[in-house]
């Protein structure tokens, strides 16, 4: 059986984008970039290092939300390789 998702463009593109997010995330959250934001000042009442880390974190989550759409499409074809693959109607967003 030919490759079901890897040859499909959305899956591969999602993978490449995820890779990009991963690399950007590592670059931003690790030294030396993170050290740039190690300043003793406050923005909106929050210390800059704390604000920086949580903002990057939030941005990473947003990025993941954006690429999870095509990913889900590509996975719809690839799942059910052996399980009781009744498709779930939709993904309910969480309350909080």
């Amino acid at each position, binding site marked *: 059986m030919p490759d079901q998702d890897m040859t499909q463009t959305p899956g591969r593109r999602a993978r490449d984008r995820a890779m990009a997010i991963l690399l950007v995330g590592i670059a931003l959250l690790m030294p030396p970039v993170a050290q740039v934001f190690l300043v003793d000042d406050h923005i909106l009442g*929050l210390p800059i290092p*704390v604000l920086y880390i949580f903002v990057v974190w939030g941005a990473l989550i947003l990025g993941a939300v954006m690429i999870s759409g095509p990913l889900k499409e590509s996975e719809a074809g690839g*799942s059910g390789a052996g399980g009781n693959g009744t498709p779930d109607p939709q993904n309910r967003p969480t309350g909080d």
Partner: protein
Amino acid sequence: MLSVNLLLGVCLGYVILLFAVAFFVDRRSERRPAGWLHSPVVYTLSISVYCTSWTFYGAVGSAARNGLEFVTIYLGPTLVFVGWWWLLRKLVRIGRAHRVTSIADLISSRYGKSSSLAVLITLIAVIAVTPYIALQLQSVTRSYQVIAGDADAMTTAFWVAAGMALFTILFGTRNLDANERHHGVVAAIALEAIVKLLALIAVGVFVTYGIADGVADVFENVHPDTIRGTTDIFGPRWITLTFLSATAIICLPRQFQVTVVENVEERHLATASWLFPLYLFGMTIFIMPIALVGLQVMPTDANPDLFVLSIPLAHERHELALFAFLGGFSSATSMVIVAAIAVSTMVSNHIVMPMALRLLHGTHAVIGDVRNLLLISRRISIGIILCLGFLYFHASGGSDALAAIGLIAFVGVAQFLPSLLGGIFWRGATCTGALSGLVVGFALWAYTLFLPSFGGDVVFSTATLTQGPWGISLLRPQALLGLAGADPLVHAVIWSVGANALTFLIVSCLTQATNLERFQAAMFVNVFRASGGAPSTIATGSHDTEDLFILAQRILGSEPARKLFDELAEEQGTTGLPLASDAVFARLERELAGSIGAASAHAMVTRIAGRETVGMTDLIDIADETQQLIETSRQLSDKSAELEQTAQQLREVNERLRTLDAQKDEFLSQISHELRTPMTAIQSFSETLITTDDIAPNERERFVSIIHSESRRLTRLLDELLDISRLESGTMELQLAKIEPQAAIRQALDAMSTMPQVAGVDVRIDGPSDDVFVRANGDRIHQVLLNILSNAVKYNDSDTPEIAISTRRHGRHVVIDVRDNGGGVSRDEAAVIFEKFSRGSKSERGAGAGLGLPISRTIMRAMDGDLTVEFDPDGSSCFRLKLLAA
């Protein structure tokens, strides 16, 4: 103060609720194996078992002590889920295709279903997880003590452990699901995940807005060092902790259980890729405020690890404290339950089952009631693991040393990472490599981190820790080979994970994989290409499907086994039992693997099949072999090109040989012809002389002179032949001397003066003064000149014959051109006159054997010179002798 009775009552109620949920879901999924319970949200919530009481209570403590550092524990998993979900997806796909039951099962299955690897991983998991479980018991006990006052820690911990064991046994081993999934447990875990998140947020909101006056107020007078912690915050420890937590989310047995084994649908990962990081974000957002406010409002001796609980209590918010207690209780119980299920599966599949198999080895086909044995062994394993956790807690006396155990466990399970990643991305990884890497990594982990963590004089003496064993400072556990100055955790990670990965790589490169390993490697690495492909097949031997059926019944239960075999028979188009084919074996092995692990399933089925090896014909199907075939065919085509080239060379050599052979034949026939002519003359004249008596004396004299001249000719011919053969074979060494060419020419002309034709020839000699010399053999150059000059005279048909001899220096050579006005040789003739026995158009029969010019050229070449025919632009030609100048 909260009353203990109320606390116990609420706890009991909560546990009953969890039981009810688990029971309800299990029932429901038996009847209808789908629905909202199989939603990606439930899946994601179950992954949040990552957040244990270490997060719920410990993160605040960590934030109070080390500032922002606690975030790393959640950044690692975030990075994995947002950016590396395709690794998880690959694990999930492999898990489904091979009915993987645990991380030990996956790794051992990848490396040729190696049972020793499975046992090793199981042992590491037990050793790493036991203290972690103890930590959960401690946190529940402590939080209980905070509310209930001085309850006995050990008694509380014991009852907590016992309760958890009961819950786990009830819902974790109710049946042997083919896919090792526990829907009821997952649902209960998901409920607990919501409770702990809401509890932490509730406390956070209360602290931030109830005690402090909003976020800005919380951070207003905070000293920067409180945020930075004591060390350089974004330093090596930051990187190491992020790496460790990223590793843990992949390698922790309980995470593997919920992420891979309990995964119902692959696409749920797509939701989890952002929802799980969001959950972690929610869990951590209020950690910093709680810690900072706690440091401000709580007495200095208050334990920051319990701020989540003690702050509401101190502010008389009992209902919030109770909720927080339930949150902590949820985090602890969910971790313990899932970890116990995951590890007990490993223990029973990889340690108890193989031992049982070995004990029952003698009884062919009758393997005992494996199904019951499995359930019992799994229950006992759960009991043992919780017992170990309790004993560890007991031994450590509930000390603060436990707080660091979370990270120590992370480093322990990080040892799985090289083998795991290598196994699913690198086909060259071998079982020996994985085993060696794990042993080295585990040993270094124990030596540099785990054993020293007990503190001085427990395992290592204080002296050993500070000065190294036997005073050898290079072996100091926390400064191995002099690597001092690093944080002990960073030090341990660099040593253990680094050495593990290197050993794994090097040993894998040096060792050979077995057929089964290579097969599994191809199946795992290319799982997306070989989707749903058959796992390893077993060559059919002499066996009976009945044995297989009995085996399936024992492990899967009668009804599922009956269903499976009916299905198999239907696929084959037969009724009753299916025929024992490779497909049947493979399918059965896969089904059994879901219950007892790949290694045990493989061992059982192969025992019935009677053969362990994978047939080569099966291997050809897989990509690995295809690649080898491509390689082989490339080599073959290279070889065939090489052969073609050799054949071409052979053809050329053959052609030359043929030509040479023809030349030799021609040469021989010419020689015999040349020899025959004088011989015939000699023979006939001598016969006449013998047979005829009355011959006139003058006639007799004439005959004798003919015989004489012919025999001289014969001798000359033979001399020439001998000459040429010696010259050509190189056996004749020519002694070279410094010779004046003009003198040699004059000498040759003098020698020719007796020839009748020479009389009327006008000879002109041009050339430089006498100071030109050549390196040549005097006799031989004379011979050559004589030959060339006599030819010039003999074949000159001009009325006024002229010969011009010019000598000049040309670079390193001296060139002698001999030119006559007799028409010279044509270009066609020039091509052949140096061949033996060829004669120019002007020579008549009997004038010579045609060896003069070939001999001359051979002589010239033997003297490092040459003899050629040169043509002027006007068509006239000359013989050119070339010699090295002396």
